[in-house]
């Protein structure tokens, strides 16, 4: 199997308060079939052997569905590969001798916890302000009790594919969270079960988003370009429409 020798330029930062710096590491004899995170595992194993602290990074499912991995690779969140999370990126996409720059997702609302790990709890708080449907627990309703047109179900499903990784924020020059918020709102707003709480949902989520310090959307579409789930920016337009009508109703109620 072909092996790569690479140079890594990695952001190291002890904690949220300390100053960060770029450190250089050699990543030697990396199999091309290893994933990007496995490449860092190999480097970390050697760092531990040398008595150093390993590079901290977020990861969990390692198959592109949990939204934990969050690295900016050569300036692009999750790398320049389209529709790919960092954990789904494989080393065969790199050339022998290449230098790779690895940084955390950058945004004021995502403070660095350590090295490449950022605190993305702001997203949790946005979800808690409306990204849900209130249902009682109890016996399950029949699956066909509420009928949903296929087109609506498909659009809602496309929006629901958002894994909440925050690449959209990291890619945006304004650090706007509009693609995330719009995907989460659009998912529920397209479904009949989401209608009764629609206004409070969009008002609550947008207010929380502003409070967390995310910037505004200026239609650059960087978010759509880096989204590992290829979520369309058209959801942002839908959120804007829903927000406008909710605000209007809110102002007269």
């Amino acid at each position, binding site marked *: 199997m072909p092996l790569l020798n690479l140079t890594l330029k990695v952001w190291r930062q002890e904690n949220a308060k300390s100053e960060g710096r770029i450190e250089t590491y050699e990543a030697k004899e990396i199999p091309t079939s290893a994933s990007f995170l496995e490449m860092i595992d190999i480097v970390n194993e050697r760092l531990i052997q040398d008595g150093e*602290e*390993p590079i901290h990074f977020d990861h969990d499912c390692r198959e592109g569905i949990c939204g934990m991995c969050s690295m900016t690779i050569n300036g692009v969140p999750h790398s320049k590969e389209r529709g790919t999370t960092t954990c789904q990126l*494989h080393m065969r996409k790199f050339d022998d001798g290449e230098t790779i720059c690895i940084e955390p997702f950058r945004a004021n609302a995502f403070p660095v916890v350590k090295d490449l790990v950022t605190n993305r709890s702001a997203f949790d708080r946005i979800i*808690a302000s409306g990204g849900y449907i209130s249902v009682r627990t109890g016996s399950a309703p029949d699956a066909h009790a509420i009928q949903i047109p296929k087109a609506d179900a498909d659009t809602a499903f496309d929006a629901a594919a958002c894994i909440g990784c925050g690449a959209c924020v990291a890619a945006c020059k304004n650090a706007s969270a509009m693609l995330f918020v719009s995907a989460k709102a659009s998912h529920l707003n397209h479904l009949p079960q989401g209608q009764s709480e629609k206004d409070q949902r969009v008002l609550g989520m947008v207010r929380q988003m502003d409070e967390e310090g995310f910037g505004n959307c200026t239609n650059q579409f960087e978010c759509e370009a880096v989204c590992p789930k290829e979520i369309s920016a058209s959801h942002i337009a839908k959120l804007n429409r829903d927000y406008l009508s909710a605000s209007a109703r809110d102002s007269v109620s």
Partner: protein
Amino acid sequence: MHPRTEMLDLVVVEGHAKGVVVRNLSTGEITTHAADAVILATGGYGNVFYLSTNAMGCNVMAAFRAHKRGAFMANPCYTQIHPTCIPVSGDYQSKLTLMSESLRNDGRIWVPKSAEDAQAIREGKKTGADIPEDERDYYLERKYPSFGNLCPRDIASRAAKECCDEGRGVATTGLGVFLDFEDAIKRDGEDAIRARYGNLFQMYEKIVDENPYKRPMMIYPAVHYTMGGLWVDYNLMSNLPGLHVLGEANFSDHGANRLGASALMQGLADGYFVIPSTIAVYLAEQKPGAVTTSHPEFKKVENEVKDRLKSLMDIKGTKSVDSFHRELGLLVWDKCGMARDRAGLEEALERIPEIRHEFWTNVRIPGSSSGLNSELEKAGRVADFIEFAEVLCHDALAREESCGGHFRTEHQFTEADEEVQDGTTQTGEAKRHDDHYQYVAAWEHTEPGQPPNLHKEELIFEEVKPSIRSYK
């Protein structure tokens, strides 16, 4: 919400589960939390095998801490090995990826009939396409004509292992079989297959760098789900009053072999429909807020947790946490994986205490216990996996039968069996011994390093009687 917070122990007050001790993973702060009851929904123990389809963070710690505080661990030997995963590619591998079971609807599973052809494929001298139709062994269709490629997970997994053990595996490591869509594409067209499985094919191509529309996929079984877990009653309460266990963390619902999609069903049923009603049975007898963290037991357990973290940090050995996890995982996979036998399990039970000893004297955890320290987090989990692995192997050793996710090579049908002669089943199939083993094995923790105590919950079948499975 407490994101990045890990439960490190359970607080038991006068025999009742009344709280937890947790560590804030970002700051390292240890806090205690009291409650009227405790619910664990902390998932399964599949990562004891190191490589599995579980997420990297999945671990047995919360369940095992509860086990050490008195909760019984039931049927841990029932582990599900899923047949359709992407094969291992190298020793750097950190996890295995599941290709959905649905692929078996249209894909045909095969290996070459001859070991020579398989070797040529492994060495890259031939591809699957070079093997003519009559030189292919569609072994599931051959052995199980009426169920074919859709036979149950444990059977499909073991059949793949058998082919690879015979030297007919096709991946570079020798551990892989083909899942071929050629016929389905010919029949329904590439677009129809793309509409059905497009996302899975894309995922496969990203990982393996081969186009599954053009070349057959390669798959191999991998650890996927653990049917065993903490023992619970019908109200989802463990034998430790107040401790409720939901989802994969408990042992209920799936018996010895989980069927497709039922893990989601269990999560929804336990969380939405069962526990909101049944927890009231326990709460009705409790005075709300009667126990607070001012109870001395909280301070005691908190100090034990802190001492344990300190002991881990103080070892300052030479080997990484991952190296221990890999070693343990490989051992458990070899001796207590798809096929188990007495000699192998006894060997594992000798080896695991040695690994445990070496871990506690030679693990290296850089950094400090304050602040984020992923090595310290993993160390605590691996320490528990090592102890848990012993319970797992004890259970597998004690269950002298084959049943669902537990296959003991000593207990399989042979030519000598009446059921084989009369055609009910065939040689090599799992052989249960219902007369002796029709029970839930619930293990009680004893002393560190000592074997657990077995409690038996007899299974009584009134309406449906267990019979011999046949997929011929």
